[in-house]
C-alpha cells in the first residue's frame, strides 16, 4: 500500500542501518517521544539491531498511559450515573483507575461504549437525546482537533446533551520536564510526527534552543525511524543541536492551520497532572470558558486524587528511567490480560510493545 510499503522496505532499512553503524563512534542516548514509534521500533526489532552504543529510551508519548488514575475514576463514576453514557476509544476501557476500570463499570451495568471517533460519540448523543453522552477525550494535539470538531458540530446542530471530559495533553511541557530533570541522560529526541503535523515546528525549535539537544521530527514506519535516528546520530557526532524535519510528507513548518484553528476555538492550555511527571503547567488542553455548557468537568465533581497500584512502575517507564522488561512485574504479575498499569494495556504503551514483541523479562534488578 502506498505511503506504507515503501517505508517498510527491508532493503532500504538495511542500508540505513549500515549508515547508522558507520557514523556511530560513541555511545548516544536518544528518546523516541511517541508510543506509536516505540511500537514500530520494538515490533520491527530496530532497537535490537542498532549498533550497541546507541540506546533508545522510550518516551511518555502514550496519552492513555499518562492519564492519571483519578481521571479514569471520574469517567468510571460518570458511567455509573443512571442517565449518563460514556464513550471513549477502546484503549481506555481496560486502563486501571482507582481500583477499577471502565470495562468493570460496564459489566456492573454502566453504559460505556467504544467509539472510533469523537464524531461517533456526537452521533450517539444526537440519536439518544434523553441521555447525557460524555466523550472521555484522551490524546495529544493530534487528537484534540477531532474532539474540537465534535463540539463545534454539537453546537451547530444544537446537540446539548453532548459533553466532553477532556484528558487531552500537550507534548512540549512534558519534554521540558524530562529534559529539565537534573538526572536526564537524554542527548537527542525523535519528535512525534503526527503531533507536529497539527502543531508545526515552533514549539520544537524552542526545545532545541533551550536544551541544546538535536530534535528530529520523525514518522512512524521503520524507514522513517531509521532515517530519524541516522539524522540524530549524525548531529550528535558532529556536535550540532538543530531541529530537523524528517517527516516532511506530513509535517509542514506551520503545521495544519485548519486543524490548529479548530483546536484553538475550543481548547486552551491548562495545568494537568501526568502519570509519572506530576502536574505540568500547560500540560493539558481544557475547554475554554465559553464551552462550559459542554464541559463535563464543569457539570460533575471530579474524583479526588487516587494512587496507582503500588506494584506498577509506570512512572519510571514513562520518564525513560526503566525499561519495561526490567520491571519486576513484567510478564509475571503484569500481562495484557491482567495489567497492573496502563503501559501494559494501551496499544501504544511501552510495556505492551515489549510483551507483544515476545520480549521476556530481563534479570537485571529494577529500581
Amino acid at each position, binding site marked *: 500500500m502506498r*505511503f506504507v510499503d515503501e517505508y517498510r522496505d527491508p532493503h532500504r532499512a538495511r542500508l540505513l542501518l549500515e549508515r547508522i553503524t558507520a*557514523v556511530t563512534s560513541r555511545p548516544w542516548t536518544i528518546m523516541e517521544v511517541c508510543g506509536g514509534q516505540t511500537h514500530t521500533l520494538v515490533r520491527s526489532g530496530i532497537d535490537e539491531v542498532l549498533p550497541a552504543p546507541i540506546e533508545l529510551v522510550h518516551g511518555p508519548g502514550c496519552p492513555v498511559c499518562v492519564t492519571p488514575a483519578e481521571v479514569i475514576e471520574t469517567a468510571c463514576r460518570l458511567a455509573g450515573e443512571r442517565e449518563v453514557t460514556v464513550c471513549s476509544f477502546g484503549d481506555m476501557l481496560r486502563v486501571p483507575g482507582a481500583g477499577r476500570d471502565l470495562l468493570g463499570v460496564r459489566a456492573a451495568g454502566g453504559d460505556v461504549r467504544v467509539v472510533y471517533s469523537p464524531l461517533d460519540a456526537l452521533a450517539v448523543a444526537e440519536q439518544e437525546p434523553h441521555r447525557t453522552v460524555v466523550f472521555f477525550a484522551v490524546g495529544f494535539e*493530534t487528537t484534540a482537533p*477531532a474532539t474540537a470538531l465534535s463540539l463545534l458540530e454539537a453546537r451547530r446542530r444544537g446537540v446539548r446533551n453532548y459533553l466532553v471530559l477532556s484528558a487531552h495533553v500537550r507534548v512540549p511541557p512534558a519534554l521540558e520536564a524530562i529534559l529539565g530533570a537534573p538526572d536526564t541522560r537524554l542527548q537527542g529526541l525523535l519528535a512525534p510526527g503526527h503531533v507536529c503535523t497539527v502543531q508545526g515546528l515552533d514549539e520544537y525549535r524552542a526545545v532545541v534552543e533551550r536544551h541544546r539537544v538535536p530534535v528530529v521530527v520523525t514518522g512512524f514506519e521503520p524507514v522513517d525511524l531509521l532515517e530519524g535516528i541516522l*539524522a540524530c546520530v549524525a548531529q550528535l557526532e558532529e556536535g550540532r543541536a538543530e531541529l530537523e*524535519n524528517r517527516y516532511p510528507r*506530513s509535517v509542514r513548518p506551520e503545521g495544519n492551520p485548519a486543524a490548529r484553528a479548530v483546536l484553538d476555538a475550543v481548547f486552551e492550555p491548562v495545568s494537568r497532572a501526568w502519570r509519572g511527571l506530576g502536574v505540568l503547567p500547560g500540560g493539558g488542553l481544557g475547554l475554554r470558558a465559553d464551552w462550559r455548557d459542554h464541559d463535563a468537568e464543569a457539570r460533575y465533581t471530579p474524583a479526588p486524587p487516587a494512587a496507582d497500584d503500588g506494584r506498577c512502575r509506570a512512572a519510571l517507564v514513562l520518564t525513560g528511567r526503566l525499561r519495561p522488561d526490567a520491571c519486576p512485574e513484567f510478564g509475571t504479575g503484569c500481562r495484557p490480560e491482567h495489567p497492573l498499569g496502563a503501559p501494559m494495556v494501551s496499544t*501504544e504503551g511501552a510495556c505492551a510493545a515489549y510483551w507483544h514483541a515476545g520480549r521476556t523479562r530481563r534479570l537485571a534488578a529494577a529500581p
Partner: protein
Amino acid sequence: MCLGVPARVVEVDEQAALRAGTVDFGGVRRQVCLACVPDAAAGDWVIVHAGIAIVRLDADGAAERLALLDSITTGPLVPGRPPDPTPGTEA
C-alpha cells in the same frame, strides 16, 4: 493514540455541512471528516486519525525524497565519517 493511517480520497461530499468524503485504506473504504484538509480533492492522499483527515500528504515531495534517500544510502560508505547522511529539510 497518534496512529495515523494513510488513505486516498475517493470522493468529496460537497453537500455535507461538515466537509466529509470517502477515503480508501488499501481496499477498505470509509467515510471520514475532511474539515481540516480544505484543499484535499479526489485522488489526494491524506492521513486519517480518529475519523478525521489531519493532513494532505505531499505525494510528489515524498517520492523525490525517497529517490534522494536511495541515491545517498547506496553511495560509497565511509566508516567513521559522519557527514550529512541523507537530505535534510528546512526546519
